[in-house]
């Protein structure tokens, strides 16, 4: 499913936080969102999810304006994993994942066996199947993050918006998650901190001060000048001869090379 924005923006107390974002993510594409802290990545994702109040500009799903759609219809298409969402409830893992079925259920169409199967599969996808009966408060940060991702998968969305989903995850689960995302036949917009992980995206969008500084294939976007100007680091591209992949080795600009 294609998601596009036109001149999208958001202001808080008259101060623009994000402005003038026009971009298009094709069906099935994975767009990586990178940028320094406070550059507006999370705000842009909230705008794409349609949950930021009083947005400027437009978000369209397959050409349809998000603001004209019902919340429920949006939730059947877009799943959003926030950067931090926690609860004090003594809820079990399976119940947290079952929340993902909310947009598909109604008082007359209650949670059934098919929904349970979808949830079980989603839990298995993030390697949490054996923890289905654990209570939320007993989970580690990484486990909570994986439950949130399972909840988003249980939503059966066509677009997934993920805000730094690899935070808190150990290296195995980081890589497993990134592979899972690239294997899913859905459109993904994912905010990432690790620029080397971002290299695996189809395209990258670079945010700087609430604006879109660049968008394009990773190799074109992550130039030495941009790394220096926006991220304030130097980066040397290293090539892995086994598969020809490029990885960066970063250093502070102040450091001697």
């Amino acid at each position, binding site marked *: 499913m294609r998601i596009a924005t036109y001149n999208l923006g958001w202001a808080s107390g008259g101060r623009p936080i994000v402005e003038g974002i026009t971009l298009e993510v094709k069906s099935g594409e994975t767009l990586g969102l990178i940028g320094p802290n406070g550059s507006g990545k999370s705000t842009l994702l909230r705008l794409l999810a349609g*949950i930021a109040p009083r947005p400027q500009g437009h978000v369209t799903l397959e050409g349809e304006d998000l603001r004209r759609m019902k919340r*429920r219809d949006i*939730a059947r298409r877009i*799943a959003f994993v926030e950067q931090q*969402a926690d609860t004090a409830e*003594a809820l079990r893992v399976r*119940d947290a994942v079952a929340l993902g079925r909310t947009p598909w259920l109604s008082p007359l169409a209650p949670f*059934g066996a098919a929904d349970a199967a979808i949830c079980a599969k989603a839990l298995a996808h993030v390697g949490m199947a054996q923890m289905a009966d654990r*209570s939320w408060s007993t989970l580690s940060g990484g486990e909570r993050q994986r439950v949130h991702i399972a909840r988003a998968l249980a939503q059966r969305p066509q677009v997934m918006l993920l805000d730094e989903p690899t935070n808190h995850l150990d290296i195995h689960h980081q890589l497993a998650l990134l592979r899972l995302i690239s294997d899913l036949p859905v459109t993904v917009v994912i905010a990432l901190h690790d620029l080397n992980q971002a290299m695996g995206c189809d395209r990258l969008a670079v945010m700087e001060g609430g604006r879109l500084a660049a968008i394009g294939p990773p190799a074109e976007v992550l130039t030495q000048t941009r790394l220096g100007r926006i991220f304030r680091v130097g980066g040397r591209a290293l090539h892995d001869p086994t598969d020809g992949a490029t990885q960066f080795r970063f250093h502070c600009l102040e450091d001697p090379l």
Partner: protein
Amino acid sequence: MSQTVPPAGLALHVALRGMAGGAVLLLAVLAGVILGETPLPWATVHAALANNLWGAGLPVDAIDQGIIWSYRVPRTLVAAACGAGLALAGVVLQALVRNALADPYLLGVSAGASTGAVAVTILGIGAGAIGISGGAFLGAALAFGLVAALARAAGGGPAQMVLAGIAGSQLFNALTSFFIAKSANAEQARGIIFWLLGNLSGVRWPDVTLAVPVAIIGLCVCLWHMRALDAFTFGADAASSLGIAVRRVQIVLIGAVTLMTATMVSLVGSIGFVGLVIPHAARLLVGPRHGRLLPAAALAGAVFLIAADVASRMLIPGQVVPIGVVTALVGAPGFALILIRGRGRT
């Protein structure tokens, strides 16, 4: 919801649980009618009920029949409805505000309802047009609006809501005292203060026809939104991205909470701790999901308030202790226990 029960099995499950709950409630109501300052034998109670419900024509002392049918039955039914309504209000507020301390009492809704009811009673503001219950509803809605606005101005978090609620309670309690001091004579003042602490002595049949439908409608509205309440587990934004029309659901549910609280306060005064302790106790028993939590809390609240009412009549022979005093005497230690037991769970 996450057990794999086929639809037919699910319906049976729900029906069985509903019947079990109904049986518990019926037993509690019967106990409430039998027990009192002077416990009446079951034969007398049975005869009085049978005569009034299906004209059985059994011989029974007219005074006993009057005590049972005009006094104890309505009183017990109203206690049940109030307990259920206040417990439901607590469950809903805790889910929407995402604070374990949220309940109609702490958020100032009960205080606002009291002020509204007192304003109508002694100042006679709009007495003819809206009545005491209407005044209580306006007071409760005004209090909640003020508290919500203050919480928003203070940053809008769950903690701010409870802090604003405390400020709101104080303000409205002060207003109530002011109205009483300004306009009530000594006799009126005594009556109102007694009523404010929670008092079911004056309850008659017309009160039943208000309290019971409000509790049932409240339960239905809450149950209709049980999935939305679940979806608030991770906050309003998460609920929104799960497809909940957050604003609309908040308005409907806060409306239901205000209606239930105002009705109950206008009938029996402001009773604390039911909305706070019962939801937590129910959560410990059936878990945090609202499909089971709402009915469980309603039932537990009904049974608890019937028991509190019986206790209020029997504690000191020949004297009625305000029911709010009983609920606080039981509720405060109960809440302490829940806090300690819930450690690590929440």
